């Protein structure tokens, strides 16, 4: 009885696998820096529609992915939030040389949604708020950019006690979104699609450019779907999505 049930379940599973996987279509796993979450989801959908391949996305902080990839995580592609991590991975022999390129240039914003605490430079300098949320600067490039802004505005001493850290830019966003922090340094891409979002686009002079590089990892070297995904990311369709989310594009890239 159990045996019969087991066998029919197995047959059904196999049938499902066969029928949902059209000829030539493959699956690839992509590690995506948290700031690029929404854009990556849209791009992955368009990618599947166009090529039949599926990109399975994992979201996290760039530093977290670095540690995981060093421990043989099964990612084929990394869309990092910086240029250093892909370069380091190449140096470690964990990325395919020559596959690195800048897919997006990130923009930092100061965002807030607490009434009476406008998210702008004056509020930041006045210090009349309790908590400023930021991504862990050691692992998240947007967090590091936030720290640079404070340094260049001469506010480090005044505001360090108000900082709360998220493990990634997604948690930094969420601290503001739940109202627990009045202000937060987040990515423009996270708030650009929010109706009525009030934010201050931090001038580019206040932080080093956030060049976000993509790289093909060793695990994906022989993976046709991974290569197809990177090619698609460079194409006009993906670039349109990237721009719509407020990122800059590297010229000629």
């Amino acid at each position, binding site marked *: 009885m159990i045996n019969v049930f087991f066998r029919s379940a197995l047959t059904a599973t196999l049938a499902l696998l066969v029928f949902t996987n059209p000829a030539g279509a493959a699956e690839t796993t992509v590690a995506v820096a948290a700031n690029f979450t929404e854009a990556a989801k849209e791009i992955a959908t368009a990618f599947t529609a166009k090529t039949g391949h599926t990109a399975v996305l994992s979201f996290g*902080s760039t*530093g*977290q992915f*670095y*540690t995981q990839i060093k421990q043989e995580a099964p990612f084929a592609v990394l869309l990092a939030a910086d240029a250093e991590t892909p370069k380091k991975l190449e140096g470690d022999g964990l990325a395919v040389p020559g596959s690195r390129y800048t897919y997006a240039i990130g923009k930092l914003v100061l965002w807030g949604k*607490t009434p009476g605490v406008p998210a702008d430079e004056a509020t930041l300098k006045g210090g009349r708020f*309790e*908590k400023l*949320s930021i991504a*862990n600067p*050691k*692992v998240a490039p947007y967090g590091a950019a936030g720290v640079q802004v404070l340094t260049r505005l001469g506010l480090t001493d005044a505001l360090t006690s108000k*900082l*709360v*850290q*998220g*493990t990634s830019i997604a948690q930094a966003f969420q*601290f503001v979104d*739940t*109202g*627990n*922090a*009045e202000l937060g340094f987040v990515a423009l891409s996270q708030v650009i699609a929010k109706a009525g979002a009030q934010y201050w686009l931090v001038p580019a002079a206040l932080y080093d450019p956030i060049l976000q590089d993509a790289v093909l990892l060793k695990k994906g070297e022989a993976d046709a779907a991974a290569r197809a995904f990177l090619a698609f990311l460079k194409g006009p369709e993906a670039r349109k999505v990237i721009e719509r989310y407020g990122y800059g594009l590297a010229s000629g890239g």
Partner: protein
Amino acid sequence: MPLQPILLTVQLAALTTAILLLVGTPVAWWLARSRARWKEAVAAVVALPLVLPPTVLGFYLLLLLGPQGPGGWLASSWGAHTLAFTFEGLVIGSVLYSMPFVVQPIRNAFEAFGERPLEVAATLGAGPFDRFFTVALPLAKRGVLTGAVLGFAHTVGEFGVVLMIGGAIPGKTKVLSVAIYDYVETGEWATAHVLAGGMLAFSFAVILTMMLLEKRLARAGT
């Protein structure tokens, strides 16, 4: 060797355990003695953190402690606007999260000795308070001890909830587990090893001590 997170963790666990013994013992007493039909519903609520993912608790706590929740209302009385990212917030979270580990063993201990010792004490003229403090509590000391040790150890081992409501502020909310996570993420494995290895040794020592104590008390008790 980062001492600050260790110290902070010990403070958090000690305070949480103290509060849990004060709050949890009466709850356990009531659960053990009451004949109310809905008491098992209360017991189930207390036991919820055993099965809930810490993310569920973390998510609700973030809203409850925040400006729109009771935590924010409470915080506004001293001019702050949220209880998240504070030591007090972590204490509230830890008390809820470790509650079943304290209440359950104490309740079991109260139930184990049955009605008889209390009835005898009552016939001898002991009032309800007297019966609780001089009869019930000493008889349940094994359960209380187990509850205290488990509550302390479980709070030390807490991670998900603290990560979600803490904000990793050094000296305030960056406890040991979060510090270890941080060191692993940033590739500072030497420090991570020291802390993680220490935790391993500590946890082993706690569990072993508890088992040995239980055995000794069991022999001495009956």
